[in-house]
């Protein structure tokens, strides 16, 4: 082999070290030394649909332009590419859904949209939570969505279609369609078409399960959970009824959660998704939704339950195996789909409060890795300049000609700029234009940098927010990390790489079959 000159080796060493994630970011937060610190716990928090601009907008709104959300104070930052693949292939599908993305970090494989921890060829793949559970780690799965929803589901169930949530099976919800519109044959592995609620209630993968989705479960699920030793908060319904209803089931409450002390706990606080904080705050004190815990409440409690289960994180005489906890702020995505900026912002803040709970625990514990990221961006959230407008409000796209230098012109070449169209921009949507359902205008919000008399929805408010669409986009998402080994996340990475990095954190070696 021809010897390379020293200079080449030197450059190679530096470049490789940077690529491997040893470079730190410009964040000024104190860097935690990785030496002599083993990782016992991994807390993975994700804001569903939370793109880079979502974070910036929430920072502006709640902290001011010069401030930082808690997640932004974590010392290592990077970016994550989120694309999916087309079914039965490796061909990228540039915009992912929550199912494919959650499968990517749960199992390290790219898969098709709608797949829950099966690969692109419909083969079941083992998840990190399953591996952690099998290895003796405590495990938790927390979400403000139904716990059968795609993001939590991908850690502790397997389904050909994310719609196969329960309470019952149906071909339409559980079996993919062929090109001719007929359903595929049922797979040999019936797990893949078993409603996710049924799987969750029986596989014991997560010791702590907190979120919504009680309507997906039935009394036989409660019985199965209790037989495994779960403390079930609330009631899954009346076994004598053929189908459960809102009247027959009893959701869990924050008071129930506060009292929970089991080694295994399931608490479902709403029959559907939990109530968004923006609306919960406006409800009367006796509204049942007021009894729901916040995401931060659930995060703190799940950490307590998981550490108690292991005899406490600080007990050196116990096993060094700690816990793996996934926490999802689900409504950032759901409210972005709805283009409701007020609800979106408050859900990001609620998620950041959960990040704070995890971060505070990690700083005290010293053996906990905290990762904060998203599964994909949702709705093309944008901060536009105060007083300006979007193409959706204009009669035509911007002009694209340069009279001073025609060489800058290109095709399509447009000679006239798009003026604002009064029919599609009839006033700020959370202000004067609130009554017009066809209005494409921005929503405006005051920030801590604005004078005290400035109101949300006014032209004077400095934060002007718009949405491109009601759907996901293919933008990279941010990632923040703290704790031993967290510098490996300070990189531009693909979402499947998160699985390997978390696996190494828990097991101290590269991923392998268990």
């Amino acid at each position, binding site marked *: 082999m021809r010897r390379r000159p020293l200079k080449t*080796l030197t450059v*190679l*060493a530096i470049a*490789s*070290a940077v*690529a*491997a*994630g040893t470079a730190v970011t410009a964040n000024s937060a104190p860097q935690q030394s*990785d*030496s002599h610190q*083993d990782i016992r716990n991994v807390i993975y928090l994700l804001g569903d649909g939370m793109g880079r601009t979502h974070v910036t907008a929430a920072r502006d709104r709640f902290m001011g332009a010069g401030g930082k959300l808690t997640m932004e104070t974590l010392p290592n930052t990077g970016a994550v590419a989120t694309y999916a693949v087309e079914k039965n292939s490796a061909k990228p*599908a540039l*915009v992912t*859904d929550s199912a494919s993305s959650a499968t990517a970090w749960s199992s390290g494989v790219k898969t098709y*949209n*709608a797949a829950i921890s099966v690969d692109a060829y419909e083969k079941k793949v083992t998840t990190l939570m*399953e*591996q952690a559970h*099998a*290895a*003796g780690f405590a495990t938790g799965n927390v979400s403000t969505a139904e716990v059968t929803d795609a993001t939590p589901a991908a850690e502790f169930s397997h389904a050909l279609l994310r*719609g196969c*949530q*329960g*309470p*019952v*099976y*149906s071909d*339409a*919800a559980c079996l993919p369609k062929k090109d001719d519109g007929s359903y595929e044959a049922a797979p040999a592995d019936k*797990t893949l*078409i078993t*409603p996710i609620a049924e*799987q969750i209630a*029986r596989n*014991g993968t997560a010791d702590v399960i907190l979120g919504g989705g009680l*309507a997906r479960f*039935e009394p036989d699920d409660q019985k199965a959970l209790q037989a495994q030793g779960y403390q079930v908060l609330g009631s899954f319904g009346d076994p004598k009824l053929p*189908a*459960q*209803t809102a009247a027959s089931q009893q959701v869990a409450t924050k008071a129930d959660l506060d009292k929970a002390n089991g080694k295994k706990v399931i608490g479902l606080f709403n*029959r*559907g*998704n939990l109530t968004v904080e923006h609306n919960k705050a406006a409800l009367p004190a006796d509204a049942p939704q007021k009894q729901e815990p916040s995401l931060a409440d659930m995060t703190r409690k799940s950490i307590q339950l998981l550490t108690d289960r292991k005899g406490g994180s600080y007990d050196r005489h116990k096993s*060094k*195996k700690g816990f793996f906890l996934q926490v999802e702020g689900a409504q950032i*995505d759901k409210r972005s*789909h*709805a283009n409701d900026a007020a609800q979106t912002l408050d859900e990001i803040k609620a998620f950041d409060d959960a990040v704070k709970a995890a971060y505070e625990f990690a700083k005290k514990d010293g053996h906990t890795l905290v990762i904060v990221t998203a599964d994909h961006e949702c709705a093309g959230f944008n901060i536009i300049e105060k007083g300006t407008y979007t193409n959706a409000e204009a009669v035509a796209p911007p002009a694209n000609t340069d009279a001073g230098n025609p060489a800058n012109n290109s095709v399509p070449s447009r000679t006239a700029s798009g003026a604002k169209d009064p029919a599609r921009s009839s006033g700020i949507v959370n202000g004067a234009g609130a009554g017009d359902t066809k209005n494409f205008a921005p929503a405006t919000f005051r920030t801590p940098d604005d004078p005290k008399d400035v109101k949300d929805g006014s032209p004077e408010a400095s934060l002007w927010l718009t949405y491109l669409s009601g759907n996901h986009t293919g933008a990279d998402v941010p990632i923040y990390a703290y704790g*031993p*080994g967290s*510098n*490996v996340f300070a990189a531009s990475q693909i979402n499947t790489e998160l699985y390997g*990095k978390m696996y*190494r*954190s828990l*097991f*101290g*070696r590269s991923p392998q079959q*268990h």
Partner: protein
Amino acid sequence: MSLTHLPRAAAAATAVAALLALATGCSGAAAPAAAKDPAPAAAPVSLPAPRSAPAPAAVLTPAPAAGEVRTGQGPFTDRVKLTDTHLTAAPSVTGHIAISSDVSDTLALEITAAYYDAQGHLLGTGTFHYEEEGEEGHAGQPHTGPRATGDGIDFTVPADHLTGTPAAAVLSIPVLVNE
């Protein structure tokens, strides 16, 4: 000491170490202490057969009025608004459904109709399936037109092999999933 001042052998070793770090994704910092080898995966969990929707009542009590369309209470009754329901001569049940619980795309919606004669005896069933987004939606064929969320959609539940002429029907919604 900077890399450029390292002896050749040391620089080479550093390069190899960096390459190994790149290959394994580990940082150049001290690797975290290895946990004990994970135990082998537990034996596969025994699951019951996938749960099916409950069968419709064989006899409807009280006996229905001619042309009556009832809504059976179920897990998702509180998430939808059913209006303008009619039993047609086709026979089928038509109506309008609006999902009030979510704003995102509907991944799965199933409406089942159980058909009864004038005495309330079950004659058979029919099913309406609907979705706005799935693999098809993400494969470049997004749903257009009315949506189940918000204003809602019209539906028709065709009867399937009835044993007589229906006088009434009961609608149920066993499946509803939004993104």
